[in-house]
């Protein structure tokens, strides 16, 4: 358990809903869920969720902090926005799922080896480096995210795909030696650093 997680759990003891409202992206809207289940029925990943969004919202209100934050449910979100488009109460369900996932990650509660959690971090690190995504490096880091041996296997399995992308000039080997970038890298990095500091400071303040 991280110190921040422990501090927040203690601070909000018995009121996980309040913790979500204070710290999770658009968490204040969780209260508005009327448990109709349209989101659960609309989700393309429905069969793979341990808990559907409808259930997650009720679990938040029922104070099931560990069960929610340690679940891999939120990581099933494909960002298809079906739930947002169909929710009769217009809850920003996609954003709340992203927010819960991001909050769980901040508190080190994500299930180990959760592939989308890993990939999402690789994606962010990739774009944050130079301001633009380097698809070649992202692809390679994705293949090798579960270790070297597994990576070679995955890379071999995707050999034909890679050749197809190269042949159609939709992948470029020279991205490995540099690649696309914003020009004002220092301004870009300073902006991201400040935004991250502000966000962390707000959550840390809630833990005290």
């Amino acid at each position, binding site marked *: 358990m991280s110190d921040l997680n422990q501090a927040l759990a203690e601070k909000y003891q018995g009121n996980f809903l309040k913790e979500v409202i204070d710290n999770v992206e658009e968490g204040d809207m969780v209260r508005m869920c009327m448990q109709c289940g349209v989101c659960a029925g609309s989700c393309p990943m429905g069969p793979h969720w341990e808990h559907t969004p409808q259930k997650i919202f009720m679990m938040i209100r029922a104070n099931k902090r560990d069960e929610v934050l340690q679940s891999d449910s939120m990581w099933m979100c*494909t960002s298809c926005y079906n739930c947002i*488009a*169909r929710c009769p109460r217009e809850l920003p369900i996609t954003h709340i799922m992203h927010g819960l996932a991001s909050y769980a990650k901040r508190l080190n509660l994500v299930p180990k080896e959760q592939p989308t959690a*890993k990939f999402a971090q690789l994606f*962010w690190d990739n774009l944050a480096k130079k301001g633009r995504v380097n*698809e070649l490096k992202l692809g390679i880091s994705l293949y090798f995210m579960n270790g070297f041996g597994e990576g070679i296997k995955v890379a071999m399995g995707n050999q034909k795909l890679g050749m*197809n992308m190269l042949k159609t000039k939709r992948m470029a080997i020279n991205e490995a030696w540099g690649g696309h970038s914003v020009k004002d890298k220092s301004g870009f990095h300073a902006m991201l650093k400040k*935004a991250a500091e502000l966000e962390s400071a707000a959550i840390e303040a809630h833990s005290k």
Partner: protein
Amino acid sequence: MSDKKEYSFYPGCSSQSGASSSNYLTSVTSMCEELDIKLNTIDDWNCCAASIGYAGGGELPRISLSARNIALSEQQHPQQDIVATCAACWLATREASERIAQSTKIKEGTGVALKEAGLEMKNDKKIRHMVEVLVEDIGMDAITAKVKKPLEGIKIAGYVGCQTNRPFGIHGESFENPQYLDNMVAAVGGEPVRDYEKKVSCCGGALAFSEPDKSFNLIKPILESAMDHGADMIVTPCPVCQMNTEVYQDKINAKFGTSFNIPVVYYSTLMSVAFGRSAKDAALDGQVIQAEKLNKIAK
């Protein structure tokens, strides 16, 4: 159509040279030349974090990314709407703009972050997708008027997908059965599959990378339905939809014992060909699965 319509253009990462939808940008460029649309690229634009950046980035850093692009656009093209061709770029930028407008906390936070990059934003721009420009500013009649080689006899399933359609969508269209992509097919002389029931189903998005097996289960019915309707090809407005439905077909065939080999193109591919541009200008060489019926016309 004498005076050119001008827009502040946000091309996005996947459109860059050597990236997965560089072929999209090639055909968009040709299409816009024919329709007298001038795209002024936002100088020094950055990634929008797409829909998978949330976990690493969190809320404020992610929204700041789009704020920077909007601020640069305000500086460089003050009178012009921002236009994106990528569904995720459009969605992230428009979402950021709305969140900044709705929340004082987000507005103040992005303001402080932007200052670190020497920027500020007014947030008074419209953020639009290229298909909105085509539907609302150009119109189907003007598109038809530019057609030199109608796509006669080609049956095309319009796969709208998710993020061009939800949560914002195109004004006047329903989320569940939007018609504009079919209208575009008809406008260039093709035969749309109007009852393509998988037109707004999810392809798995970024989870095709992290959860390929679960995503292949979603992609298969999208292809299957197009085949069942006798479609010669699929058309889409989204780079992730295009990639997921095209490049994994052999893997899906291996998994399910199917034999899919159906081309997936962009609306801009269809228009470039119908407007009489070359195969190269339409980026037909960017197809992993060749669109033979278009190759024949573009020759």
